[in-house]
């Protein structure tokens, strides 16, 4: 194509694209009258344009980052790292790969865990690596993986450990070939290893089937002390690592692998001790027997709720005819999974002793060896004494079923009455808000969260909608987490006491209120924005360089006249944020849904916002638009927005609920919105 020809074609193309899709055909006819070639050329481009948008929607740099990263992930066989010669890659962990290597000095096989150079600039990961080596090398026990050495080869750090030729418990569970005897054996050895670790003052904190491996000769080894914690006063150079829950905070649905194994106190961010490992052992034991975890759910939030509030489904059914050994196992699992640490097994040794006893009994009765567990509960129930005739058994089953149905109905009835009463309590005279949140029962908390959400939605000018259970729980989990930040002992590094955070509000809320009022943005939005964005830290800088109360990337900030150095200055940033939000609202509409998308997308550019909004509206032009429709419809958004919606929307309300109910959270101050309103009214 010549430049001249293209010039002509583009002219018509641009003019066509300026028109709404419905008018384009007519316009083309008119504009290309008599020039069929021009017309077909342009109309094929218009056609291509519609499809092209999909292809170009996400830049290649984002789509293909995985490729760039992966292109040299593999280290070739034969290469040498320190004294070791690579044989093959046998696994990949969170921070590095694991290779099978040969140590020519001792002529033995060694497992080498490598940490790549690019992690070295990442403080937390290197520290985790160090912890792992330090902790594991302090332990010398058959059931704990032996660490040979730690070293460095130019840019690569490595840990050399004994090589275990065997299967992880995860693999064994998948293979579904565990017998009851295997299960008891594995659990016993696992607990023996933990006993040794606890005796050395070390808590593992990440016991899960992936981290336990069984050698072909049956010996069980505990791996990965990467987030282990020293029980006794951590030395200053070993600040305790953030536990995985910190990471889950930023990504709903990502950490499922680990979240299912953490104890309630670990999830709540409370101090943990060896009893957290006992809990995790209980989960692993349950999973080996049932081939599924005791607490599960479709999302992390569901799993968390299940773990915090529900009792696991009994392993072997409720039948009275269950074998005594199985009933005893149930007792052990129940005790390991008590929500309150004080009610749990206090030591790994106690739990192991109980399991040992069961094992002994089974061995005496020679009953255990052939019994396969999991996936097929009936096999286990074959342990039941076969005294009753089939007909009798059937009638027993029917009776039990009838009983169960009755119990379920009764429970449902009681639950509903309980809920209704709790709700009535909350709504009458706002009684709950007067009570400390931390003292509320789970049901009361939910009711409280629901009532407050409705109130805050109304304050923002949104027509409140009834929230789904999922949404309510998502908010509650976050409120819980913040509410727990009320004594310095339970705080993780980088976290602050809630009161400390809100004590800063008098400094920045007037500034934000003025800036947002000047741009006619609902004040509630402005006031809580900085609280969610920075996870309550005023000048927090995240890994991508987004920074300050509003978490702009420098590019965005600069676009609104704030230099990188000024990004923590609320005086500069508040007007910029207000400006940015107002700009987008002017363009996209001022309904809360558009606004939410805007809030979620500072750094993604307005094209992405526009496109997502278009897609949402296309699905149903008439639905009520507010914060929660976005949350409820997040599956129609692209992946980034999905994640952000799942995280920010509930987070926003959690921040608002706390700020609007200072009394319930023991914050000695007026509600933040009244505070902000006073300021903006005085203008």
């Amino acid at each position: 194509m010549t430049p001249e020809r293209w010039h002509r074609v583009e002219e018509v193309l641009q003019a066509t694209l300026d028109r709404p899709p419905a008018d384009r055909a007519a316009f083309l006819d008119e504009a290309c009258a008599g020039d069929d070639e021009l017309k077909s050329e342009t109309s094929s481009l218009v056609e291509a344009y519609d499809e092209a948008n999909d292809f170009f929607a996400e830049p290649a740099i984002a789509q293909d980052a995985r490729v760039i990263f992966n292109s040299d992930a593999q280290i070739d066989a034969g290469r040498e790292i320190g004294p070791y010669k690579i044989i093959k890659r046998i696994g990949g962990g969170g921070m590095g790969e694991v290779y099978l290597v040969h140590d020519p000095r001792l002529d033995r096989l060694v497992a080498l865990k490598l940490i790549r150079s690019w992690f070295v600039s990442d403080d937390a990961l290197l520290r985790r690596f160090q912890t792992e080596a330090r902790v594991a090398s302090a332990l010398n026990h058959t059931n704990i993986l032996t660490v040979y050495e730690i070293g460095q080869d130019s840019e690569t750090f490595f840990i050399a450990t004994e090589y275990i030729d065997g299967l992880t418990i995860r693999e064994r569970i998948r293979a579904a070939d565990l017998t009851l005897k295997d299960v008891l054996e594995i659990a016993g050895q696992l607990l023996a290893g933990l006993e040794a670790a606890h005796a050395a003052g070390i808590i593992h904190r990440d016991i899960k089937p992936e981290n336990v491996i069984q050698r072909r000769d049956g010996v069980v080894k505990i791996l990965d002390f990467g987030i282990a914690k020293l029980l006794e006063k951590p030395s200053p150079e070993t600040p305790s690592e953030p536990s995985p829950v910190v990471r889950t905070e930023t990504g709903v649905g990502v950490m499922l692998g680990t979240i299912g194994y953490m104890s309630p106190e670990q999830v709540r961010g409370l101090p943990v001790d060896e009893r957290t490992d006992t809990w995790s052992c209980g989960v692993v034991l349950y999973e080996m027997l049932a081939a599924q975890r005791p607490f599960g759910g479709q999302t992390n939030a569901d799993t968390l709720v299940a773990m915090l509030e529900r009792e696991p489904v009994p392993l072997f059914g409720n039948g009275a005819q269950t074998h005594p050994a199985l009933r005893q196992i149930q007792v052990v699992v129940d005790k390991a999974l008590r929500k309150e640490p004080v009610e749990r097994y206090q030591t790994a040794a106690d739990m192991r002793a109980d399991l040992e006893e069961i094992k002994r009994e089974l061995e005496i009765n020679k009953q255990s060896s052939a019994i396969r567990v999991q996936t097929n509960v009936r096999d286990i129930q074959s342990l039941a004494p076969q005294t009753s005739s089939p007909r009798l058994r059937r009638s027993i089953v029917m009776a039990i079923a009838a009983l169960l149905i009755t119990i379920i109905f009764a429970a449902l009835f009681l639950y509903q009455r309980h809920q209704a009463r709790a709700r009535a309590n909350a709504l009458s005279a706002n009684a709950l808000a007067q009570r400390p949140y931390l003292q509320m029962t789970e049901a009361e908390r939910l009711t409280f969260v629901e009532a407050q959400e409705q109130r805050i939605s109304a304050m923002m000018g949104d027509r409140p909608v009834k929230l789904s259970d999922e949404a309510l729980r998502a908010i509650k989990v976050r409120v819980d987490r913040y509410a727990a930040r009320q004594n310095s002992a339970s705080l993780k590094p980088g976290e602050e006491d809630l009161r400390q955070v809100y004590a800063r509000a008098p400094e920045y809320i007037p500034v934000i209120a003025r800036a947002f009022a000047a741009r006619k943005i609902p004040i509630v939005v402005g006031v809580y924005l900085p609280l969610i964005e920075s996870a309550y830290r005023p000048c927090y800088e995240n890994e991508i360089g987004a920074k300050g109360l509003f978490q702009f990337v420098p590019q965005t900030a600069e676009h609104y006249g704030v230099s990188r150095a000024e990004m923590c200055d609320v005086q500069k940033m508040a007007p910029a944020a207000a400006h940015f939000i107002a700009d987008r609202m002017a363009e996209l509409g001022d309904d809360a849904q558009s606004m939410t998308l805007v809030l979620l997308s500072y750094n993604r550019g307005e094209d992405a916002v526009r496109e997502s909004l278009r897609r949402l509206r296309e699905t149903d032009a008439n639905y009520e638009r507010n914060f929660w429709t976005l949350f409820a419809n997040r599956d129609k958004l692209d992946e980034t927005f999905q994640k952000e919606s799942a995280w920010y929307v509930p987070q926003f309300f959690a921040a608002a609920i706390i700020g609007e109910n200072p009394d319930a959270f023991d914050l000695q101050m007026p509600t933040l919105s009244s505070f902000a309103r006073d300021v903006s009214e005085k203008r």
Partner: protein
Amino acid sequence: MPAWRLLKSDKIAPRLFLLHRKMMSVSASSVTQLLVDWQQGDQSALKKLTPLIYDELRRIAHRYVQHERNGQTLQTTALVNEAYLRLAGQKKPEWQNRAHFFAVTAQVMRHILIDHARRRRYLKHGGQFQQVTLEEASMMSEDRARQLIALDEALDELKDFDSRKSKVVELRYFGGLSLEETANALDMSVMTVRRDWRAAKAWLFRKMQEGNESDDRAWASRQSEITNRQSAMS
């Protein structure tokens, strides 16, 4: 002293950080200089810049993937921005330099990806003679590789009759820049960038589709050629 004791005494870690920082600051001044040279028309400067940027981007991209796994999101502009800040030092960057940096980054990204896509296609079609690791084969989909190559070729053609639009696409698509950033980098108005971008998208996409069709024919004929040769040999 055994190596793990070294780590235990926390001696290695701080040293490593220092080393890292030193390397960064050494390249910082040279990157700035190279950008200036390139801006003034010294093409060899680009050659020197490329590996530096490549390494940095890859390092960051690695973390990008990690974060993705943890459910965090990382914006592409921020990615490039971080690369720039690291390479050019933490001082307040000159806008002009940064604009050029973005331009270079976009080019580098394009090269990396196209290079990769070509290798991917090679593996698919001629690679039976080549040892292929599982990871390598699964990295980029065949479709994606084909699309990228088609885009690259179309972009070259576009450059011949409208080089400004090819630049816009390079920055937007391979560099991940927003409309505003692209406008800044190319010293154009946002409006013009927006119009260029949409016209270019339409033209490129149509071209890519044509390309795909002929590409398929080319592979088909090559495949039959190989088959013929094999049957002739046996």
